[in-house]
């Protein structure tokens, strides 16, 4: 599999992550991957902080949401000739050590999805785990897939899969949209174990019950 890690682009969508983005990007850059951070119109110093460890930073002049930011990063990485694309959360909940696991899984798959329930969850409350399991069950119903974790932000896919996976859901419903598109395009998909580290910071930016309703609304009534 890929020996040249710089041909793998890690796409990080960040909104007001100035506090943690430098460390998160640093961890990925040290792994030898190419990194593009899409600063989604942050009010803080996210862009400057992300540049320090050596990421390419793209700034949305106006806030357009996580789905829109990921697609911007993906478009950019494709322009720069990315062979493999990885989506990675900006809040520090992912472990850069899981990236090679996902990318190597692309040897015989088009898409590799991270699963915290195959892997490990650190620091999560029982209520959050219960909510995520419910969301996964709902999502499996909607997409007709059998996944153990439907909303993990850590995924990898091949360049050739990118056109089938164009995100049109600007906000959070993009996760469900991706699954639907994987299914429709008949892509080969595998789930790989990853570690999710919940911190106070990542919890504060996580999705609650009310947002879940909004995500469902977006999924069914938008774009």
């Amino acid at each position, binding site marked *: 599999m890929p020996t040249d890690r710089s041909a793998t682009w890690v796409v990080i969508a960040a909104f007001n992550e100035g506090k943690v983005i430098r460390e998160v990007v640093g961890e990925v850059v040290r792994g030898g991957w190419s990194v593009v951070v899409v600063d989604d119109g942050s009010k803080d110093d996210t862009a400057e902080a992300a540049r320090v460890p050596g990421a390419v930073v793209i700034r*949305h002049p*106006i806030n357009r949401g996580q789905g829109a930011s990921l697609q911007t990063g993906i478009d950019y990485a494709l322009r720069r000739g990315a062979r493999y694309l990885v989506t990675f959360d900006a809040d520090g909940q992912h472990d850069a050590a899981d990236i090679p696991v996902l990318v190597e899984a692309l040897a015989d798959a088009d898409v590799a999805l991270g699963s915290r329930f195959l892997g490990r969850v650190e620091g999560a409350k029982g209520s959050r785990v219960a909510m995520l399991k419910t969301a996964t069950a709902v999502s499996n119903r909607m997409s007709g897939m059998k996944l153990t974790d439907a909303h993990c932000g850590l995924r990898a896919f091949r360049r050739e899969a990118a056109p089938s996976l164009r995100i*049109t859901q600007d906000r959070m419903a993009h996760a469900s949209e991706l699954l639907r598109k994987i299914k429709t395009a008949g892509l080969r998909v595998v789930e790989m174990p990853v570690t999710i580290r919940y911190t106070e910071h990542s919890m504060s930016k996580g999705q609650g019950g009310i947002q879940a309703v909004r995500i469902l609304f977006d999924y069914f009534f938008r774009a």
Partner: protein
Amino acid sequence: MIIRILLLVGLAATGWLIFLRRNRLPIHIMTVFGLLVAGGAAVIFPEMTQKVAELVGVGRGADLVTYIAIVAVMFVLLHYYTKFVELQRQVTELTREIAILRTEVDRVAPPAPEPKPLQARDERVDQEAPRLVAGDDRV
């Protein structure tokens, strides 16, 4: 009756505004004027709505008008919601295009550093005042 006058004036004003902005297809203008004339007729001859209501199986003429109005409003809302979603999509596309272009331009032609904000006047005077020091070439 005052209400009839108010309603007719409202309908007439709507018609006038549409006449002023007559850059649409004739079919659109004809449809709108048809609706306005029907509205005017319903105001002047309310018994007419009663007859139509009985014809389609609604008890009162006023109820029929309400039902039609609700359906029409829902139609208009849906129309504009669809346009709104489409606009959002277009704004995202433009934002993306600008953001990527800007990144690529900066990569090829790195911009000069942003200007530092001016300091408060007192500090500036302190710092920029020429100092007369022995041995200074400028003196």
